[in-house]
């Protein structure tokens, strides 16, 4: 008991000194669990997040857009991989994590359960969804767990082009024909509220936040980050002549930020529970890819084993 408490004391000292916890360091079980939950959820979000945008790769309207979108979705695969790797340092392997995703035990960001209906959605996702993600992710570069923080540094460095390419798509649409501008506005209308939901429940209703803050896994509250996102995004929308679909949106000079209308949390929880427009399709796509890859993974493992045996035999001989 005394040993545990001295270990815990040492652990908290490291946290308080803003130093990093590394994989083999002692850590409270709850810290480990929180990290596994958060990092794996983050990794799953990257991988599932490939699907809504992947939906438009084959239909991208120009060579430039096709290459950019392909590279962007590929980056998401890379980010998923960095994050799975970080998660694996906590003593859980990727196949277990994938099982948790496929069986519905693990969650991913709800935003990816919305459909991408037009090309403008590629703009809206890059601009809003990646914008919100960056808002969430930049503070994670300073997270107390070393491997997670390092993965996030890589992710953030690579993400910077994602939001820009999204906003550029929106800008071009807004400068285009009336029909194109309407596509852009329609995409904003559909993605705005789900983007705000990406920051998670209001602070008062957030279950995991307190410890996450104490352990410096999380550095800012959901509501703080959401407010920052709104303040950053509203002027960007105005600049290209788009209207944020919120009649209550108003600049509040007292707080030097925008007041905005209530978020429909019933919708949020419905999507989390699996009743969003695309939950089934997204999960099915992931499971299909995994199952259809089964024979490929087995064969490559079998081949590697044969090669290993051959080289052992040749060494003996």
């Amino acid at each position, binding site marked *: 008991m005394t040993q545990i408490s001295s270990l815990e004391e040492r652990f908290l000292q490291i946290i308080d000194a803003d130093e990093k916890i*590394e994989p*083999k*360091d*002692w850590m409270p079980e709850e810290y480990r669990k929180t990290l596994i939950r958060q990092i794996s959820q983050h990794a799953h979000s990257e991988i599932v997040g490939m699907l809504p945008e992947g939906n438009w790769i084959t239909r991208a309207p120009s060579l430039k857009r096709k290459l950019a979108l392909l590279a962007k979705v*590929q*980056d998401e695969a*890379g980010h998923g*991989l*960095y994050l799975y*790797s*970080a998660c*694996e340092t906590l003593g859980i*392997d*990727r*196949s277990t994590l994938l099982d948790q995703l496929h069986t519905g035990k693990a969650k991913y960001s709800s935003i990816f359960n919305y459909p991408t209906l037009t090309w403008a959605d590629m703009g809206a996702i890059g601009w809003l969804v990646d914008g919100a993600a960056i808002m969430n992710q930049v503070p994670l570069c300073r997270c107390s767990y070393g491997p997670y923080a*390092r*993965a996030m540094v*890589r992710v953030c460095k*690579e993400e910077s082009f994602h939001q820009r390419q999204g906003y550029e798509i929106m800008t071009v649409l807004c400068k285009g024909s009336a029909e194109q501008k309407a596509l852009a506005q329609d995409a904003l209308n559909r993605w705005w509220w789900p983007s705000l939901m990406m920051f998670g429940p209001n602070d008062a209703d957030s279950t995991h936040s307190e410890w996450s803050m104490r352990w410096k896994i999380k550095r800012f509250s959901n509501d703080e980050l959401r407010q920052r996102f709104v303040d950053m995004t509203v002027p960007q929308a105005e600049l290209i002549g788009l209207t944020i679909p919120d009649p209550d949106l108003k600049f509040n000079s007292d707080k030097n930020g925008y007041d905005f209308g209530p978020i429909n949390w019933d919708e949020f929880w419905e999507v989390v529970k699996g009743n969003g427009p695309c939950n089934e399709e997204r999960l099915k796509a992931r499971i299909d890819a995994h199952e259809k890859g*089964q024979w490929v*993974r*087995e064969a*490559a*493992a*079998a*081949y*590697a084993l044969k*090669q*290993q045996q051959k080289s052992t035999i040749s060494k003996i001989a």
Partner: protein
Amino acid sequence: MENNWPLYEVFIRSKNGLSHKHVGSLHAADAEMALENARDVYTRRNEGVSIWVVKAADIKASDPADGDFLFEPASDKIYRHPTFYDVPDAVKHM
């Protein structure tokens, strides 16, 4: 049949003159595949000129609990550091 490919740790030399630095890990069936995937995953933006991959299971790591006897003894051996020695101010660089 085992189909959970082993984990490889990836080290990249970003340019000649620098040492290889750990950048992350990945799964591959064999070392050759690991090397190619490392190229595809970790050098998408010209981050490297040379790659090492090592099976994670082959790395023997020190135990952080042993930190006190492994690393602390070095901390009071200040005579290993140049600033331990006084030289006249007139000597500019040494």
